[in-house]
């Protein structure tokens, strides 16, 4: 499943997640549920948030950053990181934290599986033309 389709499915299933943006490791925007301009601003601020959290991790001598929740009275920001991408989501106040993290991990897994299928198809095409 590609990133856009995975986000569309997540938006259908989740009643809590209001906005989703997926960012590549190099910082580029992969896909989002909002317009490009807003998505770029979300991505930039989320990168700063992740870098700040990573600084906290280094200061504490912990292992790699896996996920975070920034909770405010107006809403929450969630970040989930995998080997290739970061999923960023916003919710209203007092979300079901475990459920939102689960949904974002599922989103990243679906995108990664889509990558694997695309790579397999490319390999088959290459083998077929050789």
């Amino acid at each position, binding site marked *: 499943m590609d990133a856009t389709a995975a986000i569309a499915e997540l938006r259908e299933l989740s009643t809590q997640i209001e906005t989703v943006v997926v960012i590549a490791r190099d910082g580029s925007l992969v896909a989002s549920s909002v317009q490009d301009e807003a998505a770029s601003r979300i991505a930039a601020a989320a990168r700063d948030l992740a870098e700040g959290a990573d600084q*906290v991790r280094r200061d504490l001598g912990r292992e790699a950053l896996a996920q975070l929740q920034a909770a405010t009275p107006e809403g929450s920001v969630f970040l989930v990181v995998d080997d290739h991408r970061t999923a960023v989501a916003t919710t209203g106040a007092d979300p079901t934290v475990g459920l939102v993290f689960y949904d974002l991990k599922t989103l990243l897994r679906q995108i990664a599986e889509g990558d694997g299928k695309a790579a397999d198809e490319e390999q088959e095409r290459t083998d077929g033309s050789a």
Partner: protein
Amino acid sequence: MARRKLVIPVVIGAGSFLGTVLYRRRSVRNRTRLDIYFDDGSMVSLAAGSPDADRLMPHADLVLAAAREGA
């Protein structure tokens, strides 16, 4: 006597108002925090008012503001 009748409700009203303000301020403070989870399964929770939270929460506010505008 009439003056005392007036003072008591005013004092009670002012006390209630002050209590509400303090409770609300504390509630907002408690609801603002940053929970960071690491690969080894450990987690650190940074409460509002800590230096790290105060440095990082503005980025979260920017994300929320951009999300509201983009929705």
